[in-house]
């Protein structure tokens, strides 16, 4: 079995994996990082989005072996070590951008990647960026609002929407 070495949330890990082991299985089952979820098997839902070398990818559609040597960041890795929340996470709470929480880690990781590329996205740009992340609970209203707020934009007008 091939051996892979990668840096996950700042920590170097080395494991033997089968060729067919997906990155998400490696994270969830191998490393116990269960914040990354599996919501589909066709690469559509985005519950499994993590960052590989700073880019958002669907960890259910990437082999663990392909991440050999990479820097991988999961929802656990973007959470401040002191137990609080980062500004994106905080904005999701402040604006009720989640309900059941299952799609949420993927949403946060996609939003974080978007804001790194586009620090002040428009609502339409946010909706476009979420094309690969399905939420069944929120109707997206409060997710878009949370991401706008996380980018420092005024969302008070949306309260009346």
């Amino acid at each position, binding site marked *: 079995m091939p051996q892979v070495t990668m840096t996950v949330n700042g920590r170097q890990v080395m494991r033997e994996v089968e060729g067919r082991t997906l990155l998400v299985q490696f994270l969830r089952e191998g490393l116990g990082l269960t914040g990354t979820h599996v919501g589909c098997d066709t690469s559509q839902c985005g519950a499994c989005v993590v960052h590989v070398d700073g880019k958002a990818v669907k960890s259910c559609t990437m082999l663990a072996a392909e991440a050999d040597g990479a820097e991988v960041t999961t929802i656990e890795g973007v959470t401040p070590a002191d137990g609080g929340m980062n500004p994106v996470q905080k904005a999701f709470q402040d604006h009720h951008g989640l309900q059941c929480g299952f799609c949420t880690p993927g949403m946060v990781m996609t939003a974080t*990647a978007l804001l790194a590329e586009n620090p002040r996205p428009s609502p339409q740009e946010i909706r476009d960026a979420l094309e*690969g992340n399905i939420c069944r609970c929120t109707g997206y209203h409060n997710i878009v609002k949370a991401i706008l707020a996380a980018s420092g934009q005024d969302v008070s007008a949306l309260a009346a929407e």
Partner: protein
Amino acid sequence: MYNFDFVKPTTLQDAIAALSRDEAMPLAGGQTLIPSMKQRLAAPSVLVSLTGIPELKGVCRADDGAVCIGAATTHAEIARETAAIYPAIAALAGGIGDPAVRNRGTIGGSLANNDPSACWPAGVLGSGATIVTNTRQIAADDFFQGMFTTALEPGEIITEIRFPVPEAAAYAKFEQPASRFALTGAFVAKFADGVRVAITGASEGGVFRWREAEEALGASFSPEAVDGLSVSADGMIGDLHGTPEYRANLVRVMTRRAVARAQ
């Protein structure tokens, strides 16, 4: 999925050697292959990753002005790197799938797969691009040979795609509401010597050139030039998401919109 040996060569030569093994398959971004392997629809015994080969990556400009894109370049990189030099291709790349898919999926993988609903075949055929492999150069007109079928021989690897840059071009697609693949997409490109129109998503034969529109647009490159044309529903795909008649309508509508966008 079924298990397999995974190899990740760092040179093209090693990749070609690895692909000569029994039931070996190349793996590019994996955005189509991995889901189909998960469904156990594909069962390679060796999977040869093409993502670790530097010579297959990147965008550059050839002496003749062509935009050359390495086969293992991701859609996201292409969208960024071609924005200034071939905006229609950049827009096409930037509209494929979703951001995470664009960060993994590659142009070479998409072309080798030749999904009848994929965007790249329209961009490549519409541009009259050349597909460069480890053994030869293939004109786009010869490359696409029907749904999921290409001119590639077993073990042959796409290394680069060379796009001549037209005077004006644009891509317009109508998305299938669930998968967001192209229900029908039209790529139009106006060159000094004529107009090319390539349609994806619509035909049972895969991507095709709409010659009638090319002719009409060659005479007058304007949206109105498409208005009088009609498209036969014969040979168009009919499924849950649209009848052949509906797709035939979209061929005309999307072509018209692409022309308007290219103005």
